[in-house]
């Protein structure tokens, strides 16, 4: 058990976990981390459960001080990271000494960085989860001066790195047809699949708006369709023809038509697409999508097999802690 003091933090940072399944019939979406893969990566790095909560940092980091030596892992959008002035590797686990300020600075790519603590960050659970869900009024954005408790840490290893799936600069996002795709007609769907989109300024945990040149993706009668269930990944087209990819904290039902649905495996890429980066969509069949999901789940459950020591031979190092911190300089740019 321990405590982390937040000295400085960017807007919109919050505790996130894998969300609250089971409440869709009451209108509460699962929510949880914008980049779920980053939660699994942090869990693998710290050798702990992926159900524990991490700190999600959209667009900016902060300064954090632990009141005891604490294991941390850094995943998601890579940021400049240092402790006590010494650089730290991203996608890696570290031991942060008590009282040493951990500084997470500018994001180098992507959108959402994650700080994981050994034992997980703690908060009173509500409706079965700790994730803040701003639209539902669950949890709040964290502020400078806040103290966050950590759970009991059942492991001790640090100093490992993980080679992660690159997903921090847009790119190709795989989609399946969904129940309203046929409303659009083959011509519009083909044009959609050939369009290169640019991520708009409007993007948050609910949805990511994409812009394109030329006409939008409006459909005849699209403003009068019956509200129907929504799943994260649905690509909703509102009145002006621009698509929004609906994200972790999206509504559970909605009346705007949806042209396709992003595979769960590719939602982290959408979440991590920075402002102005390019995105295009590639349709796959449902069978292909299930195969992809199977491969991704297997990869996710075996992430720990990909851990590599941050230092070549830790047994030769007498001052393990300080060496770990220094050695972080050599890594961290592999995503960009």
């Amino acid at each position, binding site marked *: 058990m321990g405590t982390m003091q937040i000295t400085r933090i960017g807007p919109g940072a919050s505790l996130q976990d894998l969300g609250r399944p089971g409440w869709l*019939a009451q209108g509460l979406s699962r929510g949880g981390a914008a980049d779920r893969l980053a939660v699994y990566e942090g869990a693998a790095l710290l050798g702990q459960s992926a159900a524990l909560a991490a700190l999600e940092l959209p667009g900016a980091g902060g300064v954090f001080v632990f009141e005891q030596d604490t294991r941390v892992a850094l995943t998601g959008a890579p940021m400049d990271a240092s402790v006590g002035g010494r650089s730290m590797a991203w996608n890696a686990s570290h031991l942060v000494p008590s009282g040493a300020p951990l500084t997470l600075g500018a994001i180098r790519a992507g959108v959402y960085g994650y700080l994981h603590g050994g034992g997980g960050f703690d908060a009173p659970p509500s409706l079965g989860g700790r994730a803040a869900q701003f639209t539902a009024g669950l949890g709040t954005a964290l502020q400078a001066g806040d103290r966050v408790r950590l759970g009991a840490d059942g492991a001790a290893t640090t100093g490992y790195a993980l080679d992660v799936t690159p997903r921090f600069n847009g790119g190709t996002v795989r989609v399946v047809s969904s129940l309203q795709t046929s409303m659009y007609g083959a011509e519009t769907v083909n044009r959609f699949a050939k369009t290169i989109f640019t991520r708009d300024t409007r993007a948050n945990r609910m949805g990511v708006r994409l812009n394109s040149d030329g006409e939008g993706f409006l459909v005849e009668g699209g403003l009068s369709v019956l509200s*129907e*269930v929504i799943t994260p*990944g649905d690509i909703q087209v509102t*009145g002006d023809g621009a698509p929004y990819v609906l994200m972790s904290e999206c509504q*559970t039902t909605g*009346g705007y038509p949806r042209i396709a649905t992003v595979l769960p495996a590719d939602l982290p890429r959408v979440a991590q697409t920075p402002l102005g980066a390019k995105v295009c969509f590639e349709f796959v069949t*449902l069978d292909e*999508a299930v195969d992809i999901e199977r491969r991704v789940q297997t990869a996710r459950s075996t992430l720990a097999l990909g851990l590599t020591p941050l230092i070549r031979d830790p047994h030769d190092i007498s001052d393990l802690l300080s060496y770990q911190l220094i050695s972080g300089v050599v890594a961290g740019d592999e995503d960009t």
Partner: protein
Amino acid sequence: MPDESWPVVRTVGVDRILVSFGASLSERANRAALALRAAIETQAWPGVTETTTSLVSACVVFDPLELPHAKLEAQLWTLIGQRDWFSAVLPEGRRRWNVPTVYGTELAPQLDEAAQVAGLTRSEAVASLSEKPVRVQTIGFSPGMPYLGHLPEVWDIPRQQDLSPTVPAGALVVAVRQLVLFSVTTPTGWRHVGQTALQLFQPQADPPFVLRPGDEARFTPVDRDTFESLQADPMGGATYEVI
């Protein structure tokens, strides 16, 4: 009239299957969806993680790695064939709510615009929206939020082209012969015609969600002073009787 072409079974994304009982909202399709969802819940099929309903559909959330699409579809068709879902009755223990509501004013600034689109005067619009109870057809969009209907035909008005950037929790909005009562502050394409003080989602309460599908609600006009006096009450003066 029985329609042989319904229900239809379709996928939503990679891990959901939707059984829809109509292309447009009807009471029988809504009842069928609620009854089928209840039946799916009692089946407790391995691989099904969650079920829900929309206005005219039952939705199954599942793990396609454990339960292949084809197998789930076959199970659903077997269940669908076991009865006439359109003749299902509404859930037991329904309640009729009375919800004090301010129509128009700066609290609900789109009453006049909505009335105009519907071809009604302001007072006709208020009368039409408040005289009869409407039924909770489904809960969705945001936590505890009901879709309510059917309103009279004149209210078959489209959503706005552009989203209103924000309407507050408790807002009563209208489109496509339905009312929605918002549980959270949200952007919306529906027109804001009334304001209530009812908090539909109370995370610390048990149960945290006020309304259930099948409940009825009447949005009774009150004046601004009455509304203000109800603000301190999480229920916003709403009361119910079991029907």
